[in-house]
């Protein structure tokens, strides 16, 4: 199944590859599996944005040409639905944009910052447009597996994600639906025709 158009689209923009890899790792930790494009220059960001819509841009401050704020604005203007997060050294604050300071030492803080950036934005958007209880395609994959009786380990192997990511997805599914038990999730999955009753092996 091609889910790419339902995935969220993210640009990671930073000059150095190690930097970008680090951000990718964090996205994995918080359970986001976006359609992801890396950019290592300002021109590349601009050309990417022209080709397609990106909901999230994580941008390292060093990649912005001067005057930085003005360039940021231009990014925002070209696509209103785009959320931007800036990673900087903490010395300057680009007003109105979520920031992650590089001197954040605590891993937990960093992860929370990212979670806030992705999930809060998502729910704001959801509030205004669609139902909050709508699951993402990846969550539906996990839900299907849970409902047919797979363990976290089995789901992780099946979907090529870490067990932690499985747990995060499950937590989000339960929060969105208000359903905690496997039996309840199974009923939901069948009701919504994500799985057929014969697939339930219990």
């Amino acid at each position: 199944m091609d889910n790419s158009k339902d995935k969220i689209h993210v640009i990671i923009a930073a000059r150095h590859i190690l930097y970008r890899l680090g951000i990718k790792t964090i996205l994995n930790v918080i359970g986001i599996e976006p359609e992801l494009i890396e950019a290592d220059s300002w021109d590349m960001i601009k050309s990417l944005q022209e080709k397609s819509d990106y909901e999230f841009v994580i941008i390292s401050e060093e990649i912005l040409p001067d005057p930085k704020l003005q360039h940021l604005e231009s990014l925002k203007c070209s696509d209103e639905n785009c959320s931007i997060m800036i990673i900087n050294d903490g010395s300057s604050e680009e007003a109105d944009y979520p920031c992650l300071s590089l001197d954040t030492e605590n891993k937990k803080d960093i992860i929370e910052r990212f979670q806030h950036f992705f999930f809060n934005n998502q729910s704001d958007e959801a509030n205004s447009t669609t139902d909050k209880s709508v699951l993402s395609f990846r969550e539906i994959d996990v839900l299907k597996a849970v409902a047919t009786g797979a363990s976290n380990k089995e789901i992780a192997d099946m979907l090529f994600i870490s067990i932690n990511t499985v747990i995060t997805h499950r937590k989000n599914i339960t929060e969105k639906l208000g359903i905690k038990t496997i039996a309840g999730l199974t009923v939901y999955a069948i009701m919504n025709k994500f799985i057929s009753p014969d697939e339930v092996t219990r």
Partner: protein
Amino acid sequence: MELTSRLINKDLLFSLNTQMADVIHRNYGLIPIISRFGINFGFGNKTIYEVCAENNINVRFFLEIVNSFHNPQYFPKKQLQTFPSALIIQYLSNTHKYYLKSKVPEIIGYINKMKELASDDNLKNIELIDNFFREYKNELEKHLANEDSRVFPYIMSLEEALETMDFNADLIDHIRNDSIEKYERNHGNLEEKLSDLKNLLIKFLPPVVSTEICQHLLTELFRLESDLENHTRIEEKVLVPRVKLLEQKVLESCG
């Protein structure tokens, strides 16, 4: 005058001199609790004290139970722990009967009616709800049966042993290997299932033709849930600590 003070002090606790009829007037949610004690309607203007005396009910125990149901903030753990185990157990078993003989069949009745009246395309969904509740019911039955047939008799044998100072090896064995601590506890899953069922009905079941029945069903699920919460609270906060104490006493007594 009477009426206004009654309205203002809605959460006021009931006392020996409260009229039994006023208990129900103030909180009709207490109807099943009163009947659980074996009290029938028709008590005229008699007070709680009088009605309990007539029905051979420990009035202090009655008051603590009714008040703790009425006002969730009021939970006299210490007082409740002073009552004999037999009294608490009798109340809990009566509650079990109420769940199994009255509440659960009532809920099944509503689900069956919804099935009867369902449109063709929604029938499958209501059958899913039906299966889900039956699964819950089986778990609940198993849980309650285990309490009735194993846990409660065990508690009574602890009381008896302390009374007669006759400690047999089986009992000591039971305390050492299968103490009440192990029995704390799998209420969690039962509560989660009930809450899931509510959400499935409220949020996800496509609208049914029989809306009124669905509303009744939902209301009964909420009632069952709050009754079970109270029940669990008594088991976990009153019975279990008391039994731990008994176990300890038995072990001390026989060295």
